[in-house]
């Protein structure tokens, strides 16, 4: 790359940063304020933790699409690993201490995930964090050589990956006769959100783990 | 059958067979021929009905709104019918001729498909009721004729097709700009007698002159006005029936006819005169007439000579349009028909010479009159008509053009006509002399169809030129009869323009 082009881009980027900074220091008062509205509607949302309320109720539609994005990324990884030269790659032998550690930690991590899922209704936590912990368990097991790589998921695994999104979709349209898309009747909001989160935890855990396991399958 | 549908049916009667023919297998000759001829005859039938109706003052208008302020209009008025009848009749003959000409050749389904589309476009051009509709069919004509020009697939054909497309698409673009500009200025411009632009405020005059230039330049490409004529001689590589159609009815005539419409029914001849647009047009036409004739003199290739002759002859129509007065109008309009009949005869004959004996050049024609007397007779009638020998068709046109020039106060046009007629004689008479009076030089270049009894060549190749040659004679002899091209042109001039001409 030519030096002057590098300099130009660096200059432009610094300029952009400065402009952004200047703009941020000259902001007017907010015209709309949402924290108050979130708090006011928290009771009707079915959960007590504001972030979870936004994530799964007020802006639950974003989350629905986001879960699709996640699944889509995994599909992309599958599509690519399909063309990789070596598919079935046996788990690499790992240190016995690591294996033992993984055997012990993995069930514990599943427990933690369950706790995070449940606590999400009241405090920081929820499906994404829980799913991430599940995925971490998967990565750990893989590193310990206890899980095979999956370039070609079977039907059961595909079902598990899709379950969260399908449950979410079903709950989203189930409310249509009574109201809009993703409308939870206030009485049922809590259990419905828990149902959605449970499905999501499983699928997000599987998907995040899959992002690792599917690509780890074609190391040479 | 309600009146609005008749114009649409005339268009469909060749469009539908054409589309079906595209997808016919190469071997379905009988079905293809049936479709072609049925389409041609049905079209003639519809036109007959409309001819009778228009004679009795009926209107046939089909209108469909494409976008707000943009209508597709097919309007069968007297002027449209003049051109439609010519195309339909000549299409029938050309189809017969093409069936004979292409017997056994490859890709005939494609050929006849585009051939039908080409006639569809011509008929649409004739009946277009406004500039947009005209433009639509004008461009369709370009697209439908391109595959015909390159039909043989040789390098020469492809090159000619290239040039043809470059000229016509560029011309179409100019026409489009002019049309859009005019619509923006004056709203939807339907073709109405006497034009509709004179109502615009006088400040618009400059713009209108510019638009006129764009429109005429766009149309002049197909009408082969010098210096926009370069594609026409090159397009000669097409098969003979295509050249016949291109020169007699379809492409060049579409351009000339468009100029008629623009001058008479968009601007109005009075208004065009007041904008000082007619004199430049007449000068451009005169230059083309002389230039085309001069170039024709020096062509040894028979079809090229005919092509330059077309360049020259089509501008007679433009010249007639530019003459401010009813007699000039009649001369121009009647030449639209007469030139078509004469030129198609000549091209049929040229095709016969090439197809039967392999003759492509004038210098190879010595003594051909004895080998192919009927073809040469037809050729002679066409050529003499072109020169303007009475009582043939060409004489009638030239007579009215001359008288019209005097009426319009442009006597210099007489000189142009005289010079051009002399040049016509100079490039046609030597051919006739060679054909009839020189002895044959032994063997023919490439004799393909042997003489069989009374038939000097395949019957399907012989009948069409004889029929059109007879028409050359008849339209001249019986120019005064009802429904003759001349009396129809008179009807148009009287009914449509005279009311506006002082």
């Amino acid at each position, binding site marked *: 790359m030519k030096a002057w082009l590098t300099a130009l881009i660096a200059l432009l980027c610094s300029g952009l940063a400065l402009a952004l900074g200047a703009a941020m220091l000259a902001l007017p008062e907010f015209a709309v304020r949402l924290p108050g509205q979130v708090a006011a509607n928290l009771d009707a949302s079915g959960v007590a933790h504001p972030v979870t309320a*936004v994530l799964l109720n007020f*802006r639950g539609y974003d989350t629905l699409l986001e879960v699709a994005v996640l699944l889509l990324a995994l599909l992309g990884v599958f599509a*690519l690993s399909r*063309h990789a030269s070596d598919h079935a790659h046996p788990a690499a032998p790992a240190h016995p201490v690591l294996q033992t550690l993984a055997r012990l930690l993995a069930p514990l991590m599943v427990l933690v995930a369950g706790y995070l899922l449940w606590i999400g209704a009241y405090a920081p936590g929820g499906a994404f964090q829980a799913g991430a912990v599940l995925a971490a368990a998967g990565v750990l097991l893989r590193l310990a050589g206890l899980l095979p790589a999956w370039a070609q998921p079977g039907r059961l695994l595909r079902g598990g990956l899709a379950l969260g999104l399908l449950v979410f979709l079903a709950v989203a349209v189930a409310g249509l006769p009574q109201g809009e898309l993703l409308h939870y009747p206030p009485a049922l909001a809590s259990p419905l959100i828990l149902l959605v989160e449970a499905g999501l935890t499983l699928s997000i855990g599987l998907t995040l783990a899959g*992002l690792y396991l599917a690509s780890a399958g074609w190391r040479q | 059958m309600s009146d609005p549908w008749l114009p649409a049916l005339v268009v469909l009667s060749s469009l539908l067979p054409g589309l079906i023919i595209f997808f016919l297998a190469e071997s379905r000759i009988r079905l293809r021929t049936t479709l072609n001829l049925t389409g041609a005859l049905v079209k003639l039938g519809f036109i007959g009905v409309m001819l009778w109706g228009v004679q009795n003052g009926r209107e046939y208008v089909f209108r469909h709104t494409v976008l707000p302020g943009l209508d597709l209009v097919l309007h069968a008025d007297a002027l449209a019918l003049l051109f439609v009848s010519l195309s339909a009749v000549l299409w029938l003959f050309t189809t017969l001729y093409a069936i004979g000409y292409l017997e056994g050749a490859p890709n005939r389904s494609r050929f006849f498909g585009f051939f039908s589309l080409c006639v569809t476009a011509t008929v649409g051009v004739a009946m277009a009721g406004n500039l947009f509709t005209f433009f639509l069919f004008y461009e369709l004509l370009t697209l439908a004729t391109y595959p015909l020009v390159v039909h043989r697939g040789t390098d020469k054909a492809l090159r000619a097709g290239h040039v043809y497309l470059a000229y016509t698409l560029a011309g179409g673009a100019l026409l489009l700009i002019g049309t859009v500009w005019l619509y923006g200025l004056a709203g939807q411009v339907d073709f109405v007698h006497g034009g509709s632009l004179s109502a615009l405020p006088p400040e618009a005059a400059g713009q209108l002159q510019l638009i006129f230039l764009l429109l005429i330049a766009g149309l002049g490409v197909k009408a082969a006005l010098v210096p926009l004529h370069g594609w026409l001689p090159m397009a000669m590589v097409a098969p003979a029936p295509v050249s016949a159609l291109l020169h007699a009815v379809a492409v060049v005539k579409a351009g000339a006819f468009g100029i008629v419409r623009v001058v008479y029914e968009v601007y109005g001849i009075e208004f065009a005169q007041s904008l000082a647009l007619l004199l430049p047009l007449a000068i451009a036409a005169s230059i083309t007439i002389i230039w085309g004739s001069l170039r024709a003199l020096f062509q040894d290739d028979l079809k090229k000579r005919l092509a330059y002759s077309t360049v020259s002859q089509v501008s007679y129509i433009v010249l007639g349009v530019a003459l401010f007065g009813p007699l000039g109008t009649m001369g121009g309009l009647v030449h639209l028909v007469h030139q078509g009949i004469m030129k198609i005869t000549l091209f049929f004959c040229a095709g016969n010479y090439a197809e039967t004996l392999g003759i492509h050049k004038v210098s190879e024609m010595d003594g051909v009159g004895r080998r192919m007397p009927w073809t040469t007779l037809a050729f002679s009638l066409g050529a003499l008509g072109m020169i303007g020998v009475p009582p043939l068709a060409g004489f009638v046109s030239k007579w009215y053009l001359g008288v019209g020039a005097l009426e319009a106060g442009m006597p210099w046009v007489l000189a142009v006509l005289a010079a051009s007629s002399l040049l016509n004689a100079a490039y046609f008479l030597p051919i006739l002399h060679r054909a009839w009076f020189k002895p044959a030089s032994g063997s023919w270049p490439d004799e393909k169809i042997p003489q069989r009894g009374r038939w000097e060549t395949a019957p399907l190749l012989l009948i069409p030129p004889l029929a059109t040659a007879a028409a050359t004679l008849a339209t001249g002899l019986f120019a005064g009869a009802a429904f003759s091209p001349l009396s129809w042109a008179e009807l148009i001039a009287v009914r449509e323009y005279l009311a506006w001409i002082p």
Partner: protein
Amino acid sequence: MSAALLYALAGAALFAIGLAGLLLQPHLLRKILAFNILGSGVFLILVGLGQRDGTIDPVPQAMVLTGIVVAIAATALALALARQLLDLTGQMRLPEDRPDAEPADD
């Protein structure tokens, strides 16, 4: 100036760093890092500006959670592509040659 605004300003700087890296670094892995840094900068701006008056705002926080998941999705896909490219070309950078000059794969 609130602490939140301070972090937003840091976010602007991170965005610029990430953008420069994305545009200038030829190595794909580093481009992917740069994209993640750029994204983190945007997230900081989103929450930082949203909370510039000192109140905790759960709405941008939820948006950032969504954004983080989207970012890892994109990162995983990008890494898979980069590895595939490594397998196919032996390089972890975008080839400079004109793509249409290559022979078709079919």
